[in-house]
Structure formats: structure tokens, C-alpha cells
């Protein structure tokens, strides 16, 4: 349903940050996009959601299609209304609004009152802690609670595709587990497709059915999640696993070679 075809993204009319990125997210699928800092993961999400245009970025080549409709020239607010919602990196919320007001802002694009109330209840069942904090000013929540809040807010828009940008960033492992459990439930119970950008390859590949690996503005590897989990390169660079019994120097030679292959 979501297709990114060979896009090129340029910032400030000069800086080329994506070079020929293609990916696809099918109905009800969880797809993950892995890569190091600066690889272009966030830029890819912003290209899809249209937020690129608010930062002087532009898709200069290629197309992005959602349900067969081209969306790469649309402003972000219209893309959201089609059902593609991005949860931005760094837990961006309306600090001075209460928790419940923050959630309700997510539903401002809808007008079906009864459904909105129902969805609010659903968010509270996904994240019971938010219900206890509903009257609290959002800016004072803890990091984990804020992450729950921004995911809940995205849910209030009834998205068909959710673009999640590093939901695990700076959170304790237990909280990460809790949040990913809910992401799985959102996917299963609401049938929402999810494109997940992560540094934490372990949790991402656990939850996703398909994965892409980015480096230097292009996709260098892709495949079903279980295949990626077994891939030697992924194991070494992203999962921190190395083959036992190898001599250190040998590994470093290999490391260098592999990186070279990817960067080329």
C-alpha cells in the first residue's frame, strides 16, 4: 500500500541526503528500517510524511505512492488526512497541554465524536498509565510516558500506516519492551501497518516481518526479518554478535572489507 520508488532527497537545494531509496510496506505489515546515525532513516520517513517540506528538504527524483495515489508533492497535513501518520523522533508533544488534550489533538482531523471517545478508551487500555495521568501537563511526564503519549496521539488519528521514528530512544529496556508490546498490539488489533525506524536492531527485527538496512543515504540490504537476523553483517554491526573463536585481527580485516562493500 505504501511504495517508495527510487527517491532522491535534497536539503537546501544542495545537500543530497538520499540517493535512490526504494521500499514498500504492505497492508498490515510491520517493516523496519535500520541503519547508523546519519544514514537517512529519518529523512526517509519525513519524505513519506511530507514533513521534509517544513525543513527545506525536497524529493527531487522518484515517487512515493500510498494506496496508488502519489503523495510526494502533498503538504504534511494532507498526507496525515490520507492516513499516514508519523511519530517524530524525540517524543515531540504539546508540552503545555494536558495528557488528554494531547491525545485529542491527534483526533482533530476527525469529526466522528462517538468513535473518538471510543479510540480514547482504546489508547487508555493500551497505556493504562496515561489514564492515571490524563489531567497532568504533558511536559512534566517521564520519557517513557511521553513516548506512550505520542504513540497514543498518533493512534487517535486512526492511521492506516504509522511511521515510528526511534520509539526506543533513551528509554529503559523494560519500558522499551512495554512500548513494543503495544506496537505489536496496534498492528494486530487495528491492522495498522507500521514502518519502524530503529537503532535497536534487536527489538526491531523481533517485531518486524521485513527489514531494510540503510547506509549513507541508500538501502544496502533488505530481506525478511528472520533472514536479516541470521545475516552475518547484521549480526556484527547491529546486533553486536560476533562469531566465536575468531582472532581479533582477522575480524577487523573482515569488518573493514564489509564496510567498504556497503559504502561503495
Amino acid at each position, binding site marked *: 500500500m505504501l511504495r517508495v520508488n527510487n527517491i532522491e532527497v535534497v536539503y537546501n537545494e544542495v545537500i543530497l541526503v538520499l540517493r535512490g531509496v526504494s521500499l514498500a510496506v504492505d497492508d498490515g505489515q510491520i517493516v523496519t528500517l535500520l541503519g547508523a546515525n546519519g544514514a537517512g532513516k529519518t529523512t526517509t520517513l519525513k519524505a513519506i*510524511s511530507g514533513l521534509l517540506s517544513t525543513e527545506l528538504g525536497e524529493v527531487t527524483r522518484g515517487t512515493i505512492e500510498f494506496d496508488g495515489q502519489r503523495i510526494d508533492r502533498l503538504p*504534511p497535513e494532507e498526507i496525515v488526512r490520507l492516513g499516514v501518520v508519523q511519530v517524530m523522533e524525540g517524543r515531540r508533544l504539546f508540552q503545555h497541554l494536558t495528557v488528554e488534550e494531547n491525545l485529542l489533538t491527534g483526533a*482533530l*482531523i476527525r469529526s466522528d465524536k462517538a468513535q473518538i471517545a471510543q479510540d480514547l478508551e482504546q489508547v487508555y487500555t493500551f497505556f493504562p498509565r496515561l489514564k492515571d495521568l490524563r489531567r497532568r501537563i504533558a511536559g512534566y511526564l517521564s520519557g517513557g510516558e511521553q513516548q506512550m503519549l505520542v504513540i497514543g496521539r498518533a493512534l487517535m*488519528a486512526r492511521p492506516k500506516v504509522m511511521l515510528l521514528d526511534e520509539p526506543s530512544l533513551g528509554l529503559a529496556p523494560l519500558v522499551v519492551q512495554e512500548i513494543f508490546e503495544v506496537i505489536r498490539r496496534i498492528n494486530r488489533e487495528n491492522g495498522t501497518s507500521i514502518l519502524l525506524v530503529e537503532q535497536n536492531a534487536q527489538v526491531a527485527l523481533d517485531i518486524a516481518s521485513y527489514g531494510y538496512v540503510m547506509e549513507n543515504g541508500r538501502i544496502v540490504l533488505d530481506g525478511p526479518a528472520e533472514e536479516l537476523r541470521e545475516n552475518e553483517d547484521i549480526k556484527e554491526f547491529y546486533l553486536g554478535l560476533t562469531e566465536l573463536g575468531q582472532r581479533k585481527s582477522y575480524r577487523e580485516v573482515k569488518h573493514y572489507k564489509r564496510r567498504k562493500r556497503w559504502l561503495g
Partner: protein
Amino acid sequence: MNWALFPQFFVTGLLNGGPIALVALGLVLIFKSSKIFNFAQGHILMLGTFTAWWLLTQAALPTWAGIGLALVVVMLMGFAIERVALRPLVGQPLLSIILMTLALSQVMQGGAILLFTAQQRRFPQLFPLEPYKLPEITIGETTVRIILKQNLVWSFVIAMVAVVLFALFFQYTRMGLAMRATAEDHQLARSIGLRVNHIFGLAWAISGVVATVGGILLASLSGLGLELSIIALKAFPAVLLGGLESIPGAIIGGLAIGAIEALVQGLPKDSTIRSMWPIAPYIVLVIALIVRPEGLFGLKRIERI
């Protein structure tokens, strides 16, 4: 100070603050949703009030129809300003946008001269001239008499009603929530699907209407001319005192400025301070900026520790 006159000065000052508060409310509305400090506020209300004057005297419409129509005109003007002058500046530094409002004020000044000439006009009386007299109170030797012009009382009442309406609007309506959200973070607002441009347009429209109501009340009190726009200069200290993001702050700031001006005027005739009453609001402004830069009710930056 003549203590028998003190209550009279104080109450008159407070009531004088009513129209200032309305203009300040308009400034806050725009600032709240877009972080733009609107230097053209005074000129918008001046044009709006001239429009009302023209409709009432030249077109000879009945009072309420004339004022209602003028408010519609101001509202359209607000939408037009957003569309023509501000939308092309989206993404530009805030300072450019603020300077644009300064430029707008000059254009409107010129427009007003072209359309209505620079002549002083008499604005039709909206309320009977007969003042309200409060019952006299005698405390010891002094007898306190308070006389209130109806105009002043009504502008005060209207200001208060406007505040309550706006507070309710922001707290309980979806549009109010959208405006508060937009005020905090434009990019985030767009990422949840809000049409930020429409919201700015609406803020400018409402702000112009509120300010024009203040302008009309002032004009019916002291006549109409190009210098009506100067009232906005008194609204600036009012909003900074009350806090740029705060609606109750705008009102309290406006009333405080009115009261302070009047009290300084009430000082004994021979004191030098008395003759300085026109700058009293700005002295308050300087003190407010030094002591409490975010204003009485402004938003403090939330810093999580």
C-alpha cells in the same frame, strides 16, 4: 493625593482599561497561535473603526447593522492579511514576519488617509451621555463620590464578556484546542494534520474583530482620527505585563495600565510626576521586563530535570 478623589480615579482608570484590554486580547490571540507580535494591531482597529464610522454616518445604517458589518469587514481583512502578506513568509525567520507587520501598519495608515482622509471625525454616540452615579459613601471627614460614564462601563462589560467567551473557546472547543496546539509547535501541528495557515487566518480575523470592538468604544468616547492606532502602544505594555500567551493576563494587564495611568493623573497638581502620566505605562513595562520577563501569567519554559 486627594483621597476623596482616589476611588473615582481608580475606577475610571480601570474602566478606561477595558478597551486597552480588548486590544491586548487581540495581540495575545495572534501571539498565542503564531508567535508573531503584531505591530499592525492599532492600524487594523483604526481601519475597522473608520469602516464602522463610514457605515454608520455616510451609509446611515442602523447602529447594530453598521457595527456588525464593520466587524465582518475586519474579519475578512484578517484573512486577507494572512493570505497575502504572511503566507509567503512561512519558513522565514520570525523577525521578517514581525517587520512585515510593521510594514502593514504603514500601508494601512496610508490606506486610511486615502479612504477616509486625515480629518478628525465625530463617532456617533453609542450610549447615553447621562453618567451613572454611585451612592455617596462618607468615611469620617471625606465623602466619596463616584461618577461613571456609561460608555466606559459598557466597554468594560464588553471586555469582560469577551474574555470569558475566549477562555471558554480555548478550553472547550476543538478549534480552541487546535489553536493552542498550533501555538506550541507549528511543525508538530502540521504533523498531526492541522492546517496551520487556516488557523493563523482565523487568529488574525478574530484578533481584528476584538480590537475593533475596543476601537469603536474608544472612538465613541473621544472621537475618531488616525491617532486612534496609538491605543495599541498602550496595549503593548499591557500584554507584556500580563504575559504574552495569557488571555486573563491581557485583561488584567489592560486594566492595570488603565488604572495606573489614572492614578498618576490623580496626583496633586503641582507634582512633576503627575505630568508624566502618559509614560507611566512604559515605566511599568520596563519594571515588568526586569522583574518578571514572562509577565504575570505568561508561559514559563518547561524544563524537565
